[in-house]
């Protein structure tokens, strides 16, 4: 019931968002079968120019929101986000290396940037996973958080170093990439991102009840029958894959992974069997909405969507914190 409401919201947003833009188009004409596609300008704008961007926003929003839910439960910390464990900045380092060293390289319609970015996120995941695997029984969330914080500042320094050494054009491209943008102009990058997202989705499907129990602590979860080590591995890998896929598609877009899960918890309660799917759906709809604002608020100027999510997410999150401490 609740989930289908979130699903309906996402479907409506997906259908309506491509209609809005500099050229006015009609939904009826875009889906009309009477005009051949080659002559149907509305359909071309809808399906070729605007829909990939909307689908991209949906995948990125869903991936980041779901990863946020999982990291918060895994680390038993409501302030955890997809960025917390360094996977996001690992993806950024990969992207910046590609922008600086391989600017003209591409495979099958996908430039080197998303590929390198995804590789970077996997590298960061491997380091974090190593940290967790070094512990005999499960992982201490404190150690994992600490490792993530150190990894993030270390990779941040590498990012700064590469930028410092690169020329003006490369620095400009890097800065623009780091702002986050959903300028997805074709389908191949979406198809590529679907692979890791699908794997993450399988992991997410296995997790909700274990996450409920793990939020009471690893010992309490184990005593209730959760295979904690296995659940933590599935959670870590799924959340990292979906973060990596999202960041390589759109750059680091903040706040989705922290604001959406909290907002959804206010609406549906704490049960992860609702929170996880509802956050993925709502995250998708939320990012499509933010991207719509980014495209239209100062048209024809297009804002980086990361600015819009931060402008909405930042104040909202502060409000949430004030509300909690009151």
């Amino acid at each position, binding site marked *: 019931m609740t989930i289908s409401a979130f699903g309906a919201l996402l479907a409506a947003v997906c259908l309506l968002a491509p209609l809005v833009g500099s050229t006015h188009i009609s939904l009826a004409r875009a889906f009309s079968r009477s005009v051949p596609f080659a002559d149907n300008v509305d359909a071309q704008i809808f399906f070729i120019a605007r829909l990939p961007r909307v689908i991209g926003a949906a995948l990125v929003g869903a991936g980041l929101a779901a990863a946020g839910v999982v990291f918060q*439960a895994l680390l038993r910390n*409501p302030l955890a986000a997809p960025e917390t464990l360094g996977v996001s900045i690992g993806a950024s380092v990969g992207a910046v290396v590609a922008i600086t060293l391989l600017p003209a390289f591409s495979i099958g319609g996908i430039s080197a940037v998303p590929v390198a970015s995804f590789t970077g996120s996997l590298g960061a995941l491997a380091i974090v996973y190593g940290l967790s695997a070094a512990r005999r029984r499960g992982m201490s969330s404190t150690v994992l958080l600490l490792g993530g914080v150190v990894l993030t500042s270390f990779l941040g320094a590498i990012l700064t170093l590469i930028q410092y050494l690169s020329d003006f054009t490369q620095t400009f491209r890097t800065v623009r990439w780091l702002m986050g943008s959903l300028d997805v102009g074709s389908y191949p990058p979406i198809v590529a991102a679907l692979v890791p997202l699908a794997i993450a989705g399988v992991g997410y499907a296995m997790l909700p*009840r274990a996450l409920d129990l793990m*939020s*009471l602590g690893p*010992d309490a979860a184990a*005593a*209730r029958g959760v295979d904690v080590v296995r659940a933590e591995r599935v959670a870590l890998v799924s959340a990292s894959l979906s973060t990596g896929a999202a960041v390589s598609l759109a750059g680091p877009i903040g706040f989705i992974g922290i604001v959406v899960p909290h907002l959804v918890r206010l609406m549906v309660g704490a049960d992860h069997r609702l929170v996880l799917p509802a956050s993925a759906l709502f995250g998708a709809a939320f990012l499509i909405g933010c991207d719509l604002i980014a495209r239209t608020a100062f048209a024809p100027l297009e804002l980086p969507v990361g600015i819009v999510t931060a402008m909405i997410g930042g104040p909202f999150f502060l409000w949430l914190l004030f509300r909690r401490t009151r």
Partner: protein
Amino acid sequence: MLRISNVAFAYGDHPILHDVSFAVPRGRIVGLLGPNGSGKTTLLRIIAGTLPPDRGHVEIDGVPVTSLSRRAIARRIAVVPQETHSTFDFTVEDIVLMGRYPHLGAFELEGPDDRAIARDVLQATGTLALAPRRFATLSGGEKQRVVIAGALAQASDALLLDEPTASLDLGAQLDIAALLTRLHRDRGTTMVVCTHDLNFAASLCSELVLIRQGRILAQGATADVLTPANVSALYDVQADVVFHPGAKHLTVVPIARA
């Protein structure tokens, strides 16, 4: 029946338990007493199967715990920790229904049977009226009763309780003692209770196992084991042990550091 045979455990080269053996017959309440660091909590985790022993083994009804899956163990033994905190805002009913986890398939939701069990254990622990409340808003004693309800929903046969009253006020301590006594009487629940509270143990447990520095100092019927000599050997405390006619159980009155 729980049987603990020759269990030994060390964290690295720091030995915690040496050759610990005792049995908990079905339907008994056994108290584990010992000073801080004596290995009680480690022993409880080994019995619960969340920590594998270095040597020896634990059997539930003749089946070694290590041969069972986590879920299979959880269906037989539930654990009540000293305190339970939830990161997220679960309701009391959510917390109790989570006890059904080892009984459900990977993608299965709780059905009418599970809800009936939850209702029954909420009733048995006197927490039915709290069911829609948010767990985080309850008092310590209410939380502990709800956690006991969740444990019963999980495995009604055997409970392992780790210092269940340590963070509660006096009234709530007595409530928990009365609740556990009633559950034992009405349902025949087997319990292993770790505690520092000798009077709580004396009121609740028919048998005691005294542990000091990872070794069993004494075990047997409460009346035989709870003696001034054993209290002194266990805690280095000079104490009187007297039967209190009002409380109708032995009471320990500490007098001085021995």
